[in-house]
């Protein structure tokens, strides 16, 4: 039963993942990505990782995808998507298709490797002892992997600051060709 559900979910996840790159509008891409995340969360559940599954839906489904939708709606990317689809540049269209094909092939290869590895045993591997309970996860995360965990959060923060700085510089350059000395000070003060 678990094995059948696993393969069904895995196939569904691949289908959704293909939908992400093949969908015409960015909105549908995001919804397909959401579908992939749900399939993954269900696979985690099958393996017995309740907490990870809930975290997956909470973080990716509840927050990050909402942010994606927000950005897409804010920029009204639907029009952009159509333009790229019917783009005149042959190279551009081919590049996009090539990229999609590579992505799908990678995903398929990964899945085949993963399933081949688990064939002959159970499709869904049993969890290691003491990992599922929250205290076990917390002990691993803040004990053994404490430093990498914190380093990743600092890295994310640095990336965020860098992106904000880049976007600001670009906008400032775009807004006024010759920035007056008072303009940057005003920006900083805000």
């Amino acid at each position: 039963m678990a094995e059948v559900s696993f393969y069904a979910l895995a196939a569904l996840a691949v289908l959704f993942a293909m939908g992400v790159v093949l969908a015409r509008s960015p909105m549908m891409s995001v919804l397909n990505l959401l579908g992939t995340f749900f399939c993954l969360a269900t696979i985690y559940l099958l393996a017995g990782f309740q907490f990870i599954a809930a975290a997956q839906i909470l973080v990716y489904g509840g927050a990050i995808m909402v942010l994606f939708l927000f950005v897409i709606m804010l920029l009204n990317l639907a029009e952009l998507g159509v333009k790229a689809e019917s783009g005149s540049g042959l190279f551009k269209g081919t590049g996009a298709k090539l990229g999609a094909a590579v992505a799908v092939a990678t995903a398929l290869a990964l899945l085949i490797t993963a399933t081949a590895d688990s064939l002959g045993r159970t499709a869904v591997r049993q969890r290691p002892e003491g990992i599922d309970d929250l205290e076990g996860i917390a002990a691993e995360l803040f004990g053994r992997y404490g430093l990498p965990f914190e380093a990743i959060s600092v890295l994310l923060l640095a990336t965020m600051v860098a992106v904000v700085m880049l976007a600001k510089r670009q906008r400032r350059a775009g807004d006024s060709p010759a920035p007056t000395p008072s303009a940057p000070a005003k920006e900083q003060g805000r």
Partner: protein
Amino acid sequence: MNPLLRDILVWLVKAGVVYGGLLGVAAGMTLAERKVSAWMQYRHGPNRVGPWGLLQPIADGVKFIFKESLTPDGANRWLFRFAPAIAAVPAMMTVAVIPFGPAVPLPDSWGVPAAFTNLSVTDLDIGLMYLLAIGGLSIYGVILGGWASNSKFSLLGGLRASAQMISYELTLILTILAVVALSGSLSLRGVVEAQPDFWEWNVFHQPLAFVLFSIAAFAETNRHPFDFAECEPELVSGFHTEYSSMRFALFALGEYCAMVVMASLWTTLFLGGYKVPFWENAPWFVCVAAFCAKTSLFLFLYLWVRWTLPRFRFDQLMHLGWKVFLPLALVNLFLTGAAVSYGVDLW
């Protein structure tokens, strides 16, 4: 009768009672909303259908069913139809983990040994995570409904809803984490059992978290004074401008169900859930009554606030969320964590 059959029966009864109760209370809330507003504005409110207008929700439902279901030109048909369902379903899924009573003894009958059953559809170890994860999905109904309508007002409503949800979910989760740190459990029943006595209620141990949670709860359920997704003076009706008939009713149902679930969560986290003040080991039906009473208190608070306070401005909402509530919630969580890990009892 064999024990498995009994378990299935018990589970079916519990599920039926919980979902029937949720839908009943949600329908009742539509009437209560109008009655309470009438009371506050010195009017009568609905009083024609049935005694004291009690059958008004049924009349409304029948009316919704017979209305024409319109789909605007240029709308994304699939998403337009799908969105109301996404808005309504998560709230109905999350109610499953709310504990509304203690363990109830099942009598020794039909040759099945006596046993206990906990009063909630299911008790997950990660109940709070589940509730937050699934509850957070209802926002997709609002966003997709607003986007698929092909209307500027709807789009703006959906945009505002998504920004608002992301901002206030942070505060909500951080305040819940403070409570979790204090109770040492992610299960809702565990949180209730950690506040057995009146003075042990989290509202006294986490007053700041209680206030922040209360404000975030209004924003999370898109209720006045934070109902910017609808905001009729600016956006007509926001995300559901283009919806009619049962599709509109589903949005309303989702909103009221989300309110009921949020009020139960409020009770569970801060007011000791089904615990009866100053009466330990109260019989289970008194506990259920206490739970219902506390939840009604918060449901009334929703209506009270709606008909008393003016609406904020959207930039004020964002300012409050990111620059006031989020830092306060972080400080609160930090202090709680420090107090718990060093074993300091602040009370």
